[in-house]
């Protein structure tokens, strides 16, 4: 599903964010991405979502090479990837329901079917009663769950989560990891970046460990 082959990412100015990174994530796998801050976790996720392109090497997502992908093909690729951000990136000019509806509007879903799906997604993350609320009125944990609902509403094959439990206490982060686990069970491919070791202990899975842009362990399943 996700295959990195000798990937280098160099930013203008000479900073090497990733060096010779190679790994393979199978369809339906749940994988952690660990490492200290600045180790290249975010860069790696950006490559998967085609937000950045590798300097060299190949990044294959579902058989498509990000290095050579045409600009026009990126939207279709991203519609198959659910993105969960540490800072949520919710829109405060609309309520929770409309935030989750956005991906379905983009893929021009039938209106009634879309409403059903949005409610299902909100139900999944336990926010069904808050659909009319503005995201700004939600707690940090609720905002994170709303972000997850938006990422899963279009039922993508891949979920990418960048420090999803970063700002949350243990109780909230367990809630969120339980949600991820349920997606794993229905066959979604998950890549979750975290610097929180306790998460790995509570919900063990394969982990890719990055150190200064170099993959130290977890390259092979």
């Amino acid at each position, binding site marked *: 599903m996700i295959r990195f082959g000798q990937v280098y990412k160099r930013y203008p100015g000479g900073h090497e964010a990733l060096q010779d990174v190679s790994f393979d994530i199978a369809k339906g796998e749940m994988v952690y991405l660990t490492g200290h801050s600045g180790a290249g976790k975010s860069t790696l996720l*950006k490559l998967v*979502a085609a*937000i*950045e392109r590798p300097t060299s090497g190949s990044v294959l997502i579902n058989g498509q090479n990000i290095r050579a992908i045409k600009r*026009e093909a*990126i*939207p*279709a*690729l*991203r*519609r*198959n*990837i659910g*993105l969960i951000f540490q800072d949520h*990136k919710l*829109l405060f*000019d609309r309520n929770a329901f409309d935030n989750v509806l*956005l*991906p379905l*509007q*983009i*893929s*021009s879903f*039938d*209106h009634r079917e879309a409403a059903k799906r949005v409610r299902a997604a909100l139900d999944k993350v336990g926010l069904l009663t808050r659909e009319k609320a503005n995201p700004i009125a939600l707690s940090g944990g609720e905002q994170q769950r709303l972000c997850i609902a*938006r*990422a899963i509403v279009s039922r993508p094959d891949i979920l990418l989560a960048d420090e999803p439990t970063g700002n949350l206490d243990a109780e909230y982060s367990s809630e969120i990891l339980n949600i991820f686990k349920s997606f794993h069970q229905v066959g979604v491919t998950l890549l979750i970046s975290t610097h929180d070791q306790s998460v790995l202990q509570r919900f063990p899975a394969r982990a890719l460990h990055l150190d200064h842009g170099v993959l130290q362990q977890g390259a092979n399943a």
Partner: protein
Amino acid sequence: MKTLREHLHVLHATLQRLWLTPAASLLNMTIIGIALSLPVGAYVLLKSVQQLASTVADAPQISAFLDAGKRDSELSALKGKLESDARIAKVEFVSRDAALQQLQQSTGVSDMIGDLPHNPLPDTFIIYPKVTDTKAMEALYQELQSWKQFDHVQLDSAWIKKLDALLDLGRLATAILATTLSLALIAITFNTIRLQILTRRDEIEVTKLIGASDSFIRRPFLYFGLLQGLTGGVVAWLLVSASLWLLNGSLANLTQLYASDFQLHPLTLPDSLALFAFSGYLGWLGAWFSVSQHLWQIEPR
């Protein structure tokens, strides 16, 4: 069906956005309306004058006024001589009595004429030349002037030519006005959309991240430009129509005194539709320029 619903949805959202900032929207529409109403008003004025001119005279003619006291035999000899000229198509004789009658009927000066002790008008030949080019016409006119039988010869096309030249000037001025103000309209829309893109930066970034295509992101802005241009066109239409209505009211008093039924014609349906289409298109174009200039700068990072 799906696309239609999508477009209706965007249209609805755009109307909502216009409605949310009523002061700014109204101001923009008014500015665009005023900018458009100037060339449109000038166009209406020109069209009305042009119509007046075309009803007055299509073909140029030469009027030859005779000395008083010509006998009938002299007149018919003269008519024959004119008619035999190859350059002349038709000759029409208007006797001084007929001319007086015509004058009495056609204008509101009958009272004044009734007071005259005798008929001051001369007998006249109205000559319709066969030749149409200016040089040949001028030559014929010069020649007729040298004839001793005529007191005075007048080429009636002269004032038409002057009017035509004037109208050409007016048309050019209107075209320049229309071009510059169209550019202004595009610039206004460009800037409005630029500000919108800046304030909705987060939204654009997020929608790009979750897989929105460029056309999906562009669409609401294009609709906004289109609607703003269109409503500006409607404002211009209202401004011009109201002005014409007011002007025609007082123009009626004035033209009555000249025994003319000249009036400014309101915008016809095709003209109005053309105005709306053009203003909408310009708004769309301004938005398109703005979006293609600014949207690519917003890439998620």
